[in-house]
Structure formats: C-alpha cells, structure tokens
C-alpha cells in the first residue's frame, strides 16, 4: 500500500530557522490530500521533504510502509518512486512531448506503448511530437502530469499546479487532473494557497501555518468545524464577532446569535466569547414594516459575481466591515440601510 506517513517533521534550509516545526499526518492510499496554507507557511517545504529534495532535521517520512527519511535513513529522490508536477509544469524544453513523458521510463520502455497510453490518458496524443514551447499553459500541465504518472509512482506530488493558469482554465484542468489521478489510482498530495482549490479537489485537507499543522480533515469538516478562529478565517473567510455567552447564544453586534460551543469546555454565562459566522449565514432584507427583527447595517460596497454577490457592511458596534454572501438575484445599493439576520447557528470560541 502506498500510504504516506509523516511523523514530527522538522525541516529548514541551510543557515535558516526551522521552516517546519513538527508536522505529523497520514495520507491513506489512493487519497488526494491538499496541503493548504498562506505563502511562507512551509507547505512547499513539506512537499520537498516528501520528495527527498530537502532532508528533514528531525522526524520521519514513510512511503508505502518504507522509511525514506528518518534519523538514519535518507533515500535519494530518484529512488522514492514519486512523481512531481511543479507550479510551472517544468517540461524539459529540449525534448518533445513524447520524450518528456518517456524521461522517467527505463531505456527499454521509452518506445513502448506506455508513453502513448499516458498521452492518451491526458488527451494529448495529437501533440506527441510538439515541443513544449508550442503548448498552451493547460496543455503543459497535462503533459507534466502524464510525465509524472508514466513510471507508475506510488505518490504524486503537485506543487501549486494550477496557480499559473487563467481562472477559466483552472477549474477545467483541476477536474481533469482529479479524474486522471483517480483513474491512475495514485496517492496524490497537492500544495496550494487557494482554499477553493483545496476544498473542491481534495479528499482530505491539511491546513498549515507558520510551519505547524493547524487542522486536518475532510473539506466539509474543515468548513463546518474549524479548529480555531484562524482556520475559520483562512478557510472560507469567516466573520469573527466579539460577544458574551448567554447559555445558548452569543450577544454580539448582530444581536443574539444562536451558537454551539467549540470544544468541550462550556463557558460561564456572561463570559466573553467570539462567535464565528460564514458570509452566507447572513441574510439581508430591505428596511420597512415587513422586515424581520435584526440589526440595521449600512451597505459600504457591493461586489457582483453573477451567481452571487458579496455585500460589505458596516455594523453598529463593530469596528471592521463584515461581508455577507447573497444570491445574485438580489440587488443592494451602496450607502443604503439594510436589515441583517443570521440564518443558522454560529460557532462560539472561548
């Protein structure tokens, strides 16, 4: 089996402080895991540790039950049976598409059906004799994926593979890559700073910040049960409002917001807590007689996306503007007053 096990990984570059300070996680065979973090969080270093391009200062890496990095072991990159798809695709510019895909195969197999099969898998059979310079960005990524998969690796590592692509292309290539990885049955680890990407593509997401693991879970767990305020804000852009716990709900600038408590410790009545809400948990209503009870806020700005729109609001008693995500069929004018209600329960952090 090609599980990936990381135990207490500490790593850094020569002459620098630790970039990773103790990361432990397991990625089951066949899963697609995303490592999500802001830039500088150490997520790419983690990928380089798994690839064997950076040797950890402490901790161990096991690939498919085999220790590849550890106190007394360091298996060189080329013997780890991994595939790498870098951010810029990094196709070998002096080789044709076909030769790029054949690069990792043993000499005897370079002319075999394997190359054609891989090109077929990524729909690039018609481009086999092109040079990488003649391909578009999305095509290069497909070739890079075929090249990584050709030697049948145990694990495929994808380093921000879609960030250089246009937004329209990104979704398409992302879905394609996911299909191909499923088909190939490879365990895959994707590094990204884009939370939409991580949530939409991965079976499992690991959130990393400052070289530490903040939370691991399925995309749904991460979104509905964030482990901390920071994770809540980083994944899905949460609103954090300070308030007081009244036993069932939080008294805050949005009124009395029903909430469940994060963790096991129940706060005392009247204790200061933060309530975390998602932008889509706030509904907007026009002012007037028929408006439900809620807090009146001022519309500061409206960003319209078609399918939905993001309304930036000034709440009385809250210093920073908050954002509400509503369906695109609603129209809100800037500088108008609206009534805000909360549609479902929030999470209270003590």
């Amino acid at each position, binding site marked *: 089996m090609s599980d990936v096990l990381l135990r207490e990984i500490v790593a850094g570059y020569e002459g620098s402080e630790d970039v990773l300070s103790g990361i432990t996680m397991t990625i089951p065979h066949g899963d697609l895991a995303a490592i999500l973090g802001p830039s500088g969080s150490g997520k790419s270093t983690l990928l380089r540790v798994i690839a064997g391009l950076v040797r950890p200062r402490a901790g161990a890496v096991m690939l498919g039950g085999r*220790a590849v990095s550890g106190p*007394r072991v360091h298996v*060189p990159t080329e013997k780890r049976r991994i*595939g790498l798809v870098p951010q810029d695709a990094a196709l070998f510019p002096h080789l044709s598409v076909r030769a790029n895909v054949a690069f990792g195969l043993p000499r005897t197999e370079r002319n075999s059906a394997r190359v054609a099969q891989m090109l077929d898998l990524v729909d690039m059979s018609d481009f086999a004799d092109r040079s990488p310079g003649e391909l578009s960005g999305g095509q290069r990524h497909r070739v890079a994926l075929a090249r990584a998969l050709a*030697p049948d690796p145990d694990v495929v590592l994808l380093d921000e593979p879609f960030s250089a692509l246009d937004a329209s292309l990104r979704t398409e290539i992302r879905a394609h890559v996911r299909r191909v990885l499923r088909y190939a049955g490879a365990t895959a680890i994707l590094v990204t700073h884009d939370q939409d990407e991580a949530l939409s593509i991965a079976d499992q997401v690991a959130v990393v910040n400052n070289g530490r693991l903040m939370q691991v879970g399925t995309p749904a767990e991460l979104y509905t049960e964030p482990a901390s305020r920071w994770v809540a804000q980083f994944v899905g852009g949460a609103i954090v409002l300070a308030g007081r716990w009244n036993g069932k709900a939080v008294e805050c600038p949005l009124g009395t917001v029903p909430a469940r408590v994060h963790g096991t410790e129940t706060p005392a009545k009247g204790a200061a807590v933060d309530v975390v809400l998602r932008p889509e948990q706030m509904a907007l209503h026009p002012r007037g007689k028929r408006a439900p009870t809620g807090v009146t806020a001022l519309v500061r700005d409206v960003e319209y996306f078609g399918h939905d729109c993001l309304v930036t609001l000034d709440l009385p008693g809250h210093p920073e503007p908050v954002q509400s995500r509503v369906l695109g069929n609603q129209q809100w004018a800037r500088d108008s007053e609206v009534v805000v209600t909360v549609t479902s329960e929030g999470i209270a952090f003590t």
Partner: protein
Amino acid sequence: MLRSATHTEDAEYTFGSHRATRRPVSHYVLALGALFAAALAAIPLVYLLVRVSAANPTVVSELVARGRTLELLFNTVGLVVSVAAASLVIGVTIAWLVTRSDLAGRRAWLVISSLPLAIPSYVAAFGWVATTPLRGFWGAWLVLTVCNIPLVTLPTVAALRQSNSGAEDVARTLGKSRIAAFMAATWPQVRPAALAGTLLVSLYVLSDFGAVALMRFDAFTWAIHTAYSSLFDRTLAATLSVLLAVLGIALVYAERRARGAHTRFGSTVTTRTPVVPTPLGRGAILAHTGLASIAVLSLGVPLATLVRYLGLRVEGAIAVTAADLAADLGATVMLAGAGAAIALTLSFPIGLFAARVGGALARLAESVSYLGLALPGIVVGLALVFFSLAVVPALYQTGLMLAFAYGILFLPKALGAVRSSIEQVEPGLEDVGRTLGETQWGVWRRVTARIAWPGIGAGALLVALTAMKELPATLLLRPTGTDTLATSLWRLTEASAYSAAAPYAVLLIVAATIPTLLLTREAMAHTAPRKGARL
C-alpha cells in the same frame, strides 16, 4: 507497488549522523573538480612567485628599486591612464549620441563604432607603422584608444537604454541645464557600466604587447619580452612579470567591484518612460565629423594599409605563398581549438559548482579563475615557460603547453558562458528529473547539459576565435618551427615585410569579426521594439 525487498534495498542508501547540513556526494565530487581546475588555473601565478622567491633576494630587490623599473612603471601607468581617460570620454559621448540624440543614422553609427573591436591592436598598429612615421607614446596611445573605445561604448549604450530618462526630465523642469541634468540624473545610473568598461580598457592596455612593441614604446610587456628573449635575463623577466601581475590583479578586482555595482543598480530601475531624442541642431555636423574621424583613425587607416599592401608586389621582398598561409591557419585553428577545449574543461566544474552549489569554496574557485583576465599574456607565457622547464620538461615548447596557456588566459570567458548557460536552466527541471528516477549526475547529463549546450558552444567558439589572435604567450610558448597567424604577422612586420604581412592581417580581422558581430547584435537587440506576444 508493493516492495518486498525493502530491507535489502535500504542497504544502499546513505546511513549516517542525521544533520541538516549534509550534502550529497555529488557535491563533494564537484567541489573537488572545481578546486582542481582552479589549482591548474593558478599555476602561472604560483610558479612565477616560486621562481622569483628562488632567485637571490638582493638581486630581486635591486631590480625592483632601480630607476629603469620606475621608468617602465611610469610609462605603463601613464599609457593606461591616458588611454582609459580618452576612451571613457569618447565612449560615453558616442553612447549618448547613438541612444539619446536625434543624430541621423544612429544604428549605423553604433555598428561602425563597435567594429574596431574586430581589429586586434597589433594589426591596427601594423597599419599605422606601415604607412606613417608615428611611433612611441603617442602612437601607442592613439592605436590603443581607437581600438578600445567600443569597450566603453557598448556597456554604456546598454546602461543608457536601461536607465530611467524620467529623472533627467525632472531635473530639467527643476531648472538644470541639459548637461547639468545629464550629470545629475542620468550619469549616476550609467556610471557603473561606463567605469567597468573603462577598467576593462585599462586591463587590455596593461596587458597589450603587440601594439606597444610595434610602436617601440617602452612599456612593461615589451620590456619583459626583451629581458627574456634578447637579454636572456630570466630573473629580471620574472620580477617584472610579478609587478605587472600585481597591477593586473588590482585592476580586475576594481573591475569586478564596478560590475557588481552595475548589476545592483540596474535591477532597481523599474519604470521606463519613452526617450524623446535630444535635438542636436548644428551640433549634428560636429557629431558626424567626430564619429567619422574616429572611424577613419580606427578602421580607415588599418584597412587602407591592408588594401594598399595586398595589391603591392615589391621585387625581392619576402613573399608569402598560399601554402604558408594555409599551414599557419591550420596550426592556429588547431591550437586555438585545443585551447578552447581546455578552457571549457576547466570551466565546467567551476561553473556548475558556482551555479548549483555556491558558497565560499565556489567563490574562491571563481576568483582564482579570473587570474586569466588579470595576468597579461606575456606573464602567463613566461610563467609556463619556467614551469615546463622546471617541472615537466617534456612539455616545453609543445602545442599542449601553448593550448594550456590559452585555456588559462581565456578561462574567464568560457566560465562566463558556462555559468550563465547553466543558470538559465531552472533548478525545478532538475528536481523533476530526480523524481522521475534519474540520479544527480544523470540529470546534469540528460537535462542541464543538454539545455545549456548552445550557450556553452557559443562560448567555446568565442574562446577559440579570441585565442587565434593571441600574440605574446604564443611567441614564448609555440613549438619550434610552428607559426600562427599572429606570430607570422608579428615576424613579418618586425622585418618590415608589410606586403607579406597583409594577408595575415586580413585573416586575423576575419577571425575577430565574428565575436564582434555577436557582441554588437546583443547591444542592438535591446533597441528592437518589444512585441506584446505572450504564450
């Protein structure tokens, strides 16, 4: 994907203490190779010092302190300073004219003013000596200045194109005159490039042998040659060589510093406003006249001499047959090719080490390799004569020793090409190659070397073409009975057989034209409008 043989396979992996600073074995091998190459490049300097320290110390100190040495020092330094100053003023003026003024035919003038690079200084000197009575300091000054101006012009043109003309416009609006605005706003941006070019001119003048010797000007290089070949005073020759080497090393150090400042400066310029050419008005006539005069002095006189002597058949003079010419050309190409191969072999480990590993050791190896730039050809030639006589007599006056001298002299050129070509290969490509199951050496062979090859090949060609023109080291080291184009030209000019020398001069100019065109094309490339084509 189950691996049953896990335990036995582990045996071949590196075991050992677990520290983050561990480097792969390939890096150690590379470091050893780079240091070995650097050690070979250091042979001339080291052996020169060995030779001088083996001599009687009182004799050496007397040689250093006597009036004649001071006179040589005065002559050489005087020539270096006056040529450098003239090249700086004229070079910057030409660069400004072809980039910032409305002078007609600016592109043509840029090409014409870089062409003197294609005329080796001793060929230009031959042109003047054969037709005019000009000799001595002013002869050497004139020939070296007109030959070396492009070394200032080209980098200054590049820097002017990169510089931000907006600052100069602002200075004008703040009430500065045109010249004052240039000095206040643009000159500081261009100065590092112009100074680096000027220091390169100084270095070439310091190491020039052919022009000063043909002009009978008493400079260090000529005195060393005379001390060795006519006076047979080896201690004197070695002592003078050490003094010259010290001057050369100081100049290279200054040049590296200036160049570093240049790159730092260039990167800070972010915005570029289109340049509005400065109208010259009546000054245009003056500018055309000036540029034309320099073209006549640098290109016209040598070429006219060649044409005149090629057509001239003097009765009873030494005649040159096509067979002689072909034999010399063959020897030149062979020796220069071998020199380029040696330069490339030495530069490969150093370049790979510097580009991919770096660190203090890499910097040391790189610095040592720059000795080739700092040591004049005559010094390297002499040092290798001493070295081969004392250490490997079997190699004395063999083609191999001469090729080795070329290898050391032109190592900096080869290293520059190797290093920049390797740095163009993204390290990410090597990472991908490693993950695809290829070893570090395999990746260097299958990916890095393959991509870097065209740049390295062009570098090797440049080295070979430069080595074909080399004169002073060739005179000292060439195998008995072998002549190269340069030494034949030298021999025939010394014998005043100008019409016999002319065909050699033509071949040498042809050999030097190719690298000049490459350099000029590089400078011109920046003028081409940038197309908005993106992939």
